[in-house]
């Protein structure tokens, strides 16, 4: 042993001498990860001496640093969960058909236009110019039918990306499935419409934070009551935190704060922490700092397990092991300049996410900084994850970076930093209070501005933007939504509203208002409304009138 140590000390000394011989005058400029963790030029076993073997552990075993299931990488392909949606619902269906035959497809996520996203009907004055742009338009069960007719809703996971519509969209979807004869307990999906808390991180209008949390928590409660075992509860979102300019530490700390906030709400409503935590899912952002991203996934699994065991005393093993941590590669890392370079960025980000152990990846299309993707760009994105998965052999071994001095050190550093930030959030009164105070937004905006100033000064290089600029830009095809979509959807919803039983609609909305005013359970009147052809916008307008609707900044 003594000999070994001596020999290590000798080698290390030799290396140090060699370094000073070769680089003696030049003081190495300090390097940092994207989130500001200081880096040494080299890591050795000395840097991970304090890390116990059981902290690193084994995959599928608490604290899950190395992965959520014991042999996931070998047996379950990383199935892509593509996001799609534009224009008329039937146009979205056409694009959906491109994917339905992809082997191993685990699910699809339907992208909604901005009015649907916020729960407005196409004929609402705020919707002008935006119907069918950046997503498809959904306001009633007929629109859902045009998208999902014949799609096996009990076999593939469905997400509907309308974060601010919350329960109202859930009610529409359940009412539509009922029409198809599929009861809630057979549905599979993710609650993409549960992300109203996004308003804590960006300029979105929303109910008052506390009310918004209760509104979203009711999704979990409905799932529990109806034994919807194939449906994931609250969908946590780290993606938005990164897109708004936060770093990897903000991303993990704020996602965990969301989870803590919702769990506390669900407990307050009379359910258990396990009810809430065992069915959560989460989307993280696939970003540029390759090793930091890998370490981020590892640290996230570990902190998740520890917090839920130590803070909430969870008993259900599923609560400690977040099986559905997906990745969407960062849209804001893509550049409008030299857009084809984005294919390379997306490849690096996707690779890091796969090595980090993500459950699924949604690689961005290269033209996202220009417009919504063309079919060709979307296909390249899908092929990117397929090439990585089938050709690169990275999937054969679990958690392949474990034991790397650097990765283990970085995983530990990230964990420390995230705990520090969680402590700060707790000190400030928790998720709802920090949201109300605009604290999250200030953190993110400051980080975003810091990054941007570094790009402006040339300290941070963005290829094609502040370095390696070319005069001639390659023209790439741009996807456009037919502007007549708005006209068609407005007409449709108007004639829909004229042809239904409007007395029934009035009664349903009256009931909804009454329940909302009394802070009662909203799902029953919402479902009744959805069955009576009340539109998404009408339900949301009623709730907005009762709960208020503001941009908090």
């Amino acid at each position, binding site marked *: 042993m003594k000999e070994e140590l001596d020999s290590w000390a000798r080698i290390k000394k030799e290396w140090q001498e060699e370094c000073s011989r070769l680089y003696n005058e030049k003081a190495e400029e300090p390097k940092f990860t994207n989130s500001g963790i200081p880096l040494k030029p080299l890591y050795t076993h000395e840097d991970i001496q304090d890390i116990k073997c059981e902290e690193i552990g084994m995959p599928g075993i608490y604290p899950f640093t190395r992965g959520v299931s014991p042999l996931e990488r070998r047996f379950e392909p990383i199935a892509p969960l593509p996001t799609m949606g534009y224009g008329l619902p039937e146009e979205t269906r056409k694009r959906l058909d491109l994917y339905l035959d992809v082997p191993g497809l685990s699910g699809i996520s339907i992208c909604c236009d*901005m009015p649907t996203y916020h729960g407005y009907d196409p004929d609402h004055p705020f919707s002008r110019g935006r119907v069918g742009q950046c997503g498809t338009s959904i306001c009633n069960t007929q629109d859902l039918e045009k998208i999902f007719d014949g799609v096996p809703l009990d076999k593939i996971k469905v997400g509907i990306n309308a974060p601010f519509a919350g329960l109202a969209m859930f009610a529409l979807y359940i009412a539509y499935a009922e029409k198809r004869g599929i009861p809630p307990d057979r549905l599979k999906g993710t609650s993409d419409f549960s992300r109203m808390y996004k308003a804590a991180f960006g300029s979105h209008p929303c109910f008052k934070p506390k009310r918004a949390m209760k509104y979203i928590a009711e999704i979990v409660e409905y799932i529990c009551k109806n034994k919807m075992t194939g449906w994931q509860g609250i969908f946590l979102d780290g993606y938005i935190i990164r897109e708004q300019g936060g770093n990897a530490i903000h991303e993990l700390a704020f996602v965990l704060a969301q989870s803590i906030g919702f769990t506390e709400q669900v407990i307050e409503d009379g359910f258990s922490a396990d009810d809430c935590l065992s069915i959560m899912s989460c989307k993280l952002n696939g970003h540029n700092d390759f090793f930091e991203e890998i370490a981020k996934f590892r640290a996230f699994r570990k902190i998740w397990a520890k917090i839920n065991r130590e803070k909430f005393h969870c008993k259900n093993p599923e609560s400690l092991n977040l099986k559905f941590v997906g990745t969407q590669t960062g849209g804001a890392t893509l550049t409008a300049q030299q857009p084809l370079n984005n294919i390379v960025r997306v490849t690096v980000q996707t690779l890091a996410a796969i090595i980090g152990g993500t459950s699924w990846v949604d690689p961005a299309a290269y033209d996202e900084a220009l417009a919504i993707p063309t079919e060709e760009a979307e296909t390249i994105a899908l092929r990117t994850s397929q090439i990585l998965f089938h050709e690169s052999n990275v999937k054969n071994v679990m958690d392949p970076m474990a034991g790397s001095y650097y990765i283990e050190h970085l995983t530990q550093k990230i964990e420390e930093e995230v705990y520090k930030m969680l402590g700060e959030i707790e000190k400030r009164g928790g998720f709802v209070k920090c949201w109300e105070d605009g604290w999250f937004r200030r953190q993110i905006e400051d980080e975003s*501005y810091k990054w941007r100033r570094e790009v402006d000064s040339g300290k941070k290089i963005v290829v094609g933007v502040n370095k390696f600029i070319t005069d001639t830009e390659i023209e790439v095809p741009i996807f456009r939504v037919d502007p007549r979509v708005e006209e068609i959807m407005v007409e449709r919803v108007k004639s829909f509203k004229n042809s239904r039983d409007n007395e029934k609609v009035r009664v349903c909305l009256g009931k909804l208002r009454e329940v909302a005013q009394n802070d009662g359970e909203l799902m029953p009147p919402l479902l009744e409304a959805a069955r009576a052809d009340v539109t998404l916008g009408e339900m949301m307008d009623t709730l907005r009138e009762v709960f208020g609707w503001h941009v908090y900044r």
Partner: protein
Amino acid sequence: MYIDKGIQTKIRVLLCVATIDGHDRGVKYIARKLRDAGMEVVYTTYNLIEEIVDVAIQEDVDVIGISSSTASHTTLFSDVIQSLKAKGAEDKLVIAGGVIPTADIPILKKIGVKAVFGPGTSGDEVVNFILANSDGEKNKVVK
């Protein structure tokens, strides 16, 4: 503060993004850059075009910058410029930012948008454009 020939002017800028759009990262960066350059910046979110125009008139701004990243720019900017004209406020410099395809820039310029700043634009570029194209005349203060 922009000082030229003894005349001190402070340029007033309204920057906004639709509440229904939500992509505010770029516009908030520009807001800080313009403030750092000595301009007065009013930042707001809006639901209806009329709100932008009314605030612009009430706050007597020289420049209106609107960020749009959800493909509604053509309708949005033609509505804004029409409304400014109807209210006799067409002298305000209207600029655009956000995700706007290059092919649409000539269309927006024809409508009356003076400049379009896409993703990756440096804040200095926007500052310089405003300094070159707006004299902040309404807020002239003789030194």
